[in-house]
């Protein structure tokens, strides 16, 4: 436990530092800092309206943060000195052979995926419904294809270099279809898939962009227990087999507690807890936030906890319980 507990401080792939996001007078995120460990599954949890999706939107370039720095560090670990130098230089990113440092708050949305390698899915499914399942996965690989096809001129002429790339892209897509058990649906329109299949296809599509970090916004929402279990396996295999780190927002505590290496808890735009599943589960502030206790009462609850009058391992909050 001790070695994994250190990972997000020792070798973070994503480091959100003093992130603040204001919309007019509303402070959605208030001076938030947390790390996502390389090779970890990190869960971002919190009651509704805590600012989880806003964090995602900042990380993936939908919003430009009011303040703060988001450092994405692909490849080997970098020293703080390198990050500082890059920040001062005013550039967006610095690449080396084995990866690079990317300051995501300075980059626009398509470059975050294409250059830095952060992929994302949404709460509501956003597949290209009119395109086939296979095409959905090929769109995600278009950057390599476009380069190889010389902006589709070589592609139309069918030059060998392009054909090889196109075959590789297809192989990768088929590989992901196999892993998500969608291979026999490859030529169907994506909109025709069942809900659970669409969820898996979204993850497969995000993985086809060849990301270093995969951000999933409520991947288990609306899944039945069997599909949830399959999702857990898929996410674990992405972490273990592909070496891709995962940051996920999830309300299904069963999923969160089971697969997360690291949990960050938000409430009202601030971080109230940060640690592994066991420590977060028994954190009185987390329990208070989930049970809807006022801020002032938190201290009371804490005292009670210390006195042993309230059992720290309270009922597992579920989606219904938080509303």
């Amino acid at each position, binding site marked *: 436990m001790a070695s994994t507990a250190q990972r997000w401080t020792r070798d973070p792939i994503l480091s959100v530092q003093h992130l603040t996001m204001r919309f007019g007078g509303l402070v959605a995120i208030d001076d938030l800092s947390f790390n996502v460990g390389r090779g970890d599954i990190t869960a971002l949890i919190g009651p509704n309206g805590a600012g989880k999706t806003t964090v995602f939107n900042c990380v993936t370039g939908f919003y430009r943060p009011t303040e703060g720095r988001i450092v994405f560090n692909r490849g080997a670990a970098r020293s703080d000195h390198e990050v500082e130098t890059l920040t001062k230089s005013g550039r967006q990113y610095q690449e080396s052979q084995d990866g690079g440092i990317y300051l995501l708050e300075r980059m626009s949305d*398509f470059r975050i995926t294409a250059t830095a390698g952060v992929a994302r899915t949404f709460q509501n499914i*956003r597949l290209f419904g009119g395109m086939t399942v296979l095409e959905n996965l090929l769109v995600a690989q278009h950057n390599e294809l*476009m380069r190889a096809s010389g902006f589709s001129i070589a592609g*139309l002429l069918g030059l060998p270099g392009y054909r090889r790339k196109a075959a590789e892209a297809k192989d990768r897509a088929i590989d992901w279809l196999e892993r998500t058990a969608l291979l026999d649906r490859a030529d169907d329109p994506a909109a025709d898939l069942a809900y659970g299949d669409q969820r898996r296809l979204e993850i497969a599509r995000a993985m086809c962009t060849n990301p270093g970090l995969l951000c999933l916004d409520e991947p288990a929402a609306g899944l039945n227990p069997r599909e949830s279990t399959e999702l857990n396996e898929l996410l674990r295999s992405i972490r273990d087999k592909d070496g891709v780190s995962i940051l996920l927002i999830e309300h299904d505590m069963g999923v969160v507690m089971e697969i997360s290496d690291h949990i960050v808890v938000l409430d009202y735009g601030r971080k109230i807890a940060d640690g592994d599943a066991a420590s977060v589960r028994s954190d009185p502030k987390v329990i208070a936030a989930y049970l809807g206790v006022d801020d002032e009462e938190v201290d009371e609850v804490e005292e009670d906890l210390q006195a042993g009058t309230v059992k720290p391992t309270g009922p597992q909050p579920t989606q219904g319980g938080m509303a």
Partner: protein
Amino acid sequence: MEYFLQQLINGITLGSIYGLIAIGYTMVYGIIGMINFAHGEVFMIGAFIALTSFLALAALGITFLPLVLLIILAVAMIFTALWGWTIERVAYRPLRGSFRLAPLITAIGMSIFLQNFVQITQGARVKPLPPQIQGGITLMDSPSGIVVQLSWMQLIIIVMTVVLMTAFSLIIGKTSLGRQQRACEQDRKMASLLGVNVDRTISLTFVMGAGLAAVAGTMYLLYYGVIDFYIGFIAGVKAFTAAVLGGIGSLPGAMLGGLAIGLIETFWSGYFSVEYKDVAAFSILAIVLIFLPSGLLGRPEVEKV
């Protein structure tokens, strides 16, 4: 019968030209949901560039016709595509993300600007071009004196359109660029999150549409032999009608709509009266839209719940 056949040939030729222009409307609408009212003017500019390059080649003493045709077509396509790209860059991109009507109004402004620009720089008088390609195939020579003829020019226009349409469907359907365009069409934000450079894809769409409009402009110039700064307006409205009739956003629809409008116009002027051919075309548009609100091949927009 002979008369009918001849009108059919004329109608298909005219419809091909409309169809080529209509694709520009339908593609731009598909990808950014905006009617590019300046597209008719892009077609007109294509015709002018073709005429200019034709005269330049004649001045240089190049008169071998197939070569001349190839060169003016290439020059017209390249320069008109450049115009298309520039129009998008200066007039539409800065307004992306602004309210829906803003780009529509800029498009109308752009259309007026281009018309006047050509009028001032090229003069308001019509520009004639003596027929370059004469003769054709006589399909039928009846004793009644009506000759059914498919002229070489008509043949070129029809073959050209078929070739371009095929190439185009292949680009949209099979290449990575086409996949990107379809992805942007369905969900721009998501496409961008998958690393698709949406701005570049939109620019390329304008470039492709303008390229096809240039072909239409060149064909118009060679077929009719006269152009002026105003041809873009009427052709543009017709092509837009064609795109709506076929189902805006649908490529085969644009082609089908173009053919339909071309045929309706030709047959109406052939059998009834030339003066009312536009009334006929627009009436049929109105009737079709009453029964098929999304056009002949358009997909109905399903409200997402």
